[in-house]
């Protein structure tokens, strides 16, 4: 098992293989199962991701509290006119669609958490579609994403309560960026640059859910996270390097999370949760 991004990249370079190939091999060995078994499980997760994304772009899904809903469908409907381009609009729409399904008590895959569950499917499904990749290739790229997420979990955290939103949506964005670089045929080294670029963009992002619910600002942050993942991958694929290595960025993220006030870590006491509108909504929801 690899404990740093550097180790992951160097090992894949040495073997001349993709990161996902390495991850599947290591994982099968450590679990004592076949790579095929791992692959099929991940493939079933991809199916759940697709179902959630489709459901949320096709119909207006409202949350239990009623404060969010239908965002995925709305942007999907406007995708052809999107100034940011159809790829970004589709990815962001799917990300919000999955988030909508989550907030409505629908079935999703935590990636890495439920609050950030739209980013990886939104970005990865869309890039896979644009690049005409097979499902199997997309499944492979999810192993790369998961490996990156695991290294962030080991060396920092994936919990908003510990590290703020940078640990949830930030990590999801880095994971998605890594998967996209691999799907687009980038090198393992470029993958690490994409991870670093994605994480740096949201360094210090606070976790400030209104009424403590995974809705405001979470649904729209999933959209932004998916868009950011694609752009981070584009930068890396263009040969732009992160001056700060990915592992150092991850350590910095951990430290920033530690320095962050508890009010900004999922307690609904700071950020947009503490605004007059946030508080009013929270009061209303508590009494519903």
């Amino acid at each position, binding site marked *: 098992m690899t404990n740093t991004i550097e180790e992951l990249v160097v090992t894949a370079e040495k073997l001349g293989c993709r990161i996902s190939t390495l991850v599947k091999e290591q994982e099968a060995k450590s679990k004592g199962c076949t790579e095929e078994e791992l692959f099929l499980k991940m493939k079933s*997760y991809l199916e759940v991701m697709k179902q959630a994304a489709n459901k949320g772009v096709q119909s207006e899904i409202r949350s239990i509290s009623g404060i969010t809903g239908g965002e995925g469908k709305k942007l999907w409907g406007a995708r052809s006119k999107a100034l940011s381009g159809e790829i970004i609009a589709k990815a962001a729409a799917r990300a919000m669609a999955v988030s909508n399904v989550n907030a409505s008590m629908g079935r999703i895959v935590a990636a890495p*958490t*439920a609050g950030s569950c739209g980013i990886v499917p939104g970005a990865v499904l869309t890039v896979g579609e644009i690049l005409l990749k097979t499902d199997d290739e997309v499944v492979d790229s999810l192993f790369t*994403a998961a490996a990156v*997420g695991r290294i962030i979990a080991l060396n920092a955290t994936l919990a908003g309560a510990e590290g703020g939103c940078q640990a949830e949506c930030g990590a999801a964005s880095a*994971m998605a960026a890594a998967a996209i670089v691999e799907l687009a045929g980038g090198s393992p080294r470029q993958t690490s640059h994409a991870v670093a670029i994605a994480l740096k963009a949201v360094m210090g992002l606070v976790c400030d859910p209104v009424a403590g619910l995974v809705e405001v600002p979470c649904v729209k942050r999933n959209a932004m996270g998916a868009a950011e993942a694609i752009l981070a991958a584009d930068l890396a694929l263009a040969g732009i390097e992160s001056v700060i290595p990915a592992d150092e960025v991850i350590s910095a993220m951990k430290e920033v999370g530690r320095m962050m006030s508890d009010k900004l870590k999922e307690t609904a006491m700071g950020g947009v949760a503490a605004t007059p509108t946030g508080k009013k909504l929270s009061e209303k929801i508590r009494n519903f």
Partner: protein
Amino acid sequence: MDIFDIIGPVMIGPSSSHTAGAVRLGNLARKILGEEPKKAKIILFNSFARTGRGHGTDKAVIAGLLGFTPDEERIKTAFEEARRRGLAYQLFTGEIDESLHPNTVTFELEGTSKKTQVTGCSIGGGRVKVTAIDGFDVEFSGGYPTIITVHKDRPGIVASVTAHLAHEGINIAQMRVSRKKRGQEALMVIETDDKLPETIKEVLENIKDIHRVITFSE
């Protein structure tokens, strides 16, 4: 750390601790009762009560009592399912209690022939912990094959149970004994690495001074 803990699990949203964890706690309470619950009084504490309702915690605990798994879409309609299956439930909000974990729930359950009271908490990422059964302090996750005995507090009971496990080649991962008062009733929780044979419940029930045995696997 499992790669499928990073991408995964498949779950019903919106929250791993407030929804998926709540289903798991309901599942455990059902297993501890050991039969179909007919009456349930559920008390949600702290964050489980405050934020939980918006995260479907109320539906999730009922779904758990009905035996649904955290990835089943019918969690959303747990109230209707409960009525259909004849489970009479009442949900209450407990007083804010700082000494309890933020996501704590107490179940008071009645089946056709059994009764139990179970308290547990959801500790993050869908993982849970049972903290009390019928007034005895316990601590276990339900992630292992589990044996619970209620027995008379006297020398030799623990030894006869563990001797039997040794005989069956079952390795104990964790165990804990607690009692309310010396010489009265005690409760023991054993979590094992190995699968439990079906006969084990009956064998342990036949040991003198063991009043009740509960066994379950994940």
